[in-house]
């Protein structure tokens, strides 16, 4: 019996005509939707869409859209980081966004993407976790970041990343008082989440199709790609790498993708800040 994490995802197929069409475009340096190989779809962020969440954002990458929401609670710190708050990233894979998903707990794709987004954020030190302490060694803020794909038209992992980024940038931390029975959250007194804006990570995903590398693949492109390569940088450092998929990767393609990301990152950073902090 195959492991449940493998068998809970429906395989999808493209017709030969669809495949040929993608291939013939790409071999000519163009893509089915008119983009250049290294052209990203339009990124749009709609923050604060869920009033009951402490932070929330819809991110759209072309037709792909993802909703992220953040709820905050108070709990004991992890033993090895007694003076830091904590956060958890989770991605549900309900069959809303894609017919390849099933009801049930997150499948291996949801788990992988949530962990990649987590590493992009965590490695960058974007969140000032040291500011998320209520009472040192006793109570810290815990942020639950939950991601719901809405429409999977390709590159969910980047849409999930930007939805998370948008939610973090607009998150309000409620005041907490320590009462007789433990911490009490005062939802009406809030302040913005402390962030190291200058360390804000930027993540992009590249896909290998034929012998070409394309940026921000569509759903159909993902189905014919050899691998996807998700990269995140913060300042001049690479903070996350994930090769995903069964193709083989050339070192030069990896290095070229990092350079491409580096070049684009400031523009994207400005776009994200403009669309969230205004």
């Amino acid at each position: 019996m195959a492991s449940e994490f493998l068998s809970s995802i429906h395989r999808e197929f493209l017709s030969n005509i669809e495949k040929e069409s993608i291939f013939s475009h790409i071999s000519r340096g163009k893509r089915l939707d008119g983009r250049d190989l290294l052209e990203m779809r339009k990124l749009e962020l709609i923050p604060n869409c869920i009033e009951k969440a402490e932070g929330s954002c819809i991110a759209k990458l072309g037709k792909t859209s993802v909703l992220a929401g953040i709820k905050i609670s108070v709990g004991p710190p992890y033993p090895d980081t007694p003076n830091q708050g904590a956060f958890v990233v989770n991605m549900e894979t309900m069959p809303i966004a894609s017919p390849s998903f099933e009801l049930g707990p997150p499948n291996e794709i949801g788990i992988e993407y949530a962990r990649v987004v987590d590493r992009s954020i965590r490695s960058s030190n974007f969140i000032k976790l040291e500011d998320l302490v209520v009472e040192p060694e006793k109570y810290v803020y815990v942020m639950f970041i939950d991601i719901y794909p809405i429409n999977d038209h390709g590159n969910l992992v980047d849409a999930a990343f930007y939805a998370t980024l948008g939610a973090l940038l607009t998150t309000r931390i409620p005041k907490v008082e320590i009462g007789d029975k433990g911490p009490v959250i005062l939802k009406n007194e809030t302040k913005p989440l402390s962030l190291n804006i200058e360390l804000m990570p930027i993540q992009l995903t590249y896909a290998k199709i034929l012998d070409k590398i394309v940026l921000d693949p569509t759903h159909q492109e993902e189905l014919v790609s050899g691998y996807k390569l998700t990269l995140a940088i913060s300042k001049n450092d690479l903070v996350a790498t994930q090769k995903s998929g069964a193709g083989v990767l050339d070192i030069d393609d990896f290095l070229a993708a990092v350079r491409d990301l580096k070049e684009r990152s400031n523009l994207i950073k400005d776009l994200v800040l403009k669309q969230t902090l205004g």
Partner: protein
Amino acid sequence: MSLKISEEEFKKILESGKRVDGRAFTELRPINIRLGIVERAEGSCLFEMGHTKVLCVVRGPTECVPAYIADPERAVLDVAYRMCTFSTEERKSPTPSRREVELSKVIREALEPSILLEEFPRMMIKVYCLVLQADAGTRTASINAASLALAQAGIPLRDLVTSVAVGYCYGNIVVDVCSIEDELCADIPIAMLPAYRKITLLQSDHRLPIDRLSEILSTAIKAIDQIYELQKKALKEYYLSSTKTGD
């Protein structure tokens, strides 16, 4: 939105002929409908009533999996109602609660009479309702959204299904209950096939005087008729715009 007031204050406002959120007794919250927003699904609808926001997606008719649940005479309808973890005041666990299981069932049974399931023997039609934000009326919003998503998916329907929750608050009948009313008063969610005047969902709890039931139902029907018009308008606009864009 999460305003807390005392029962006394709540009653006083009602006595003044108004509701806590300023609405008249039979006034609906603002409704916003968007169709076809999930491209990779046969049908989809975002339905907002006040702060309540539900996204509904329809898939199918498709092959019935597992095969042993197939019905040789009609399509099987499967409905899953789920809430986002951040849709509620306290974070909801992503594991389906017993409430979510029950609501999946009653929403399914509210929709079933409207669908010509007999046209798709051995097939399956799947409806997924995801509550993005819960501020009372999530099951009724889910039904309204799901029926529109079914229509957009081109599934043959006898009629739309339209739903609203009526409240009975200290002697007053209010329509489209809000969170505080839901907590303090009796809540009666109703769904109908409006053109046929037939009820497809009916639930209640709290205390309802038997001699007011008839009035409660007729109040509900008036609200349902209003929502029905909005649903039809949204469908018409969707078809017009999709014809225009050639989508």
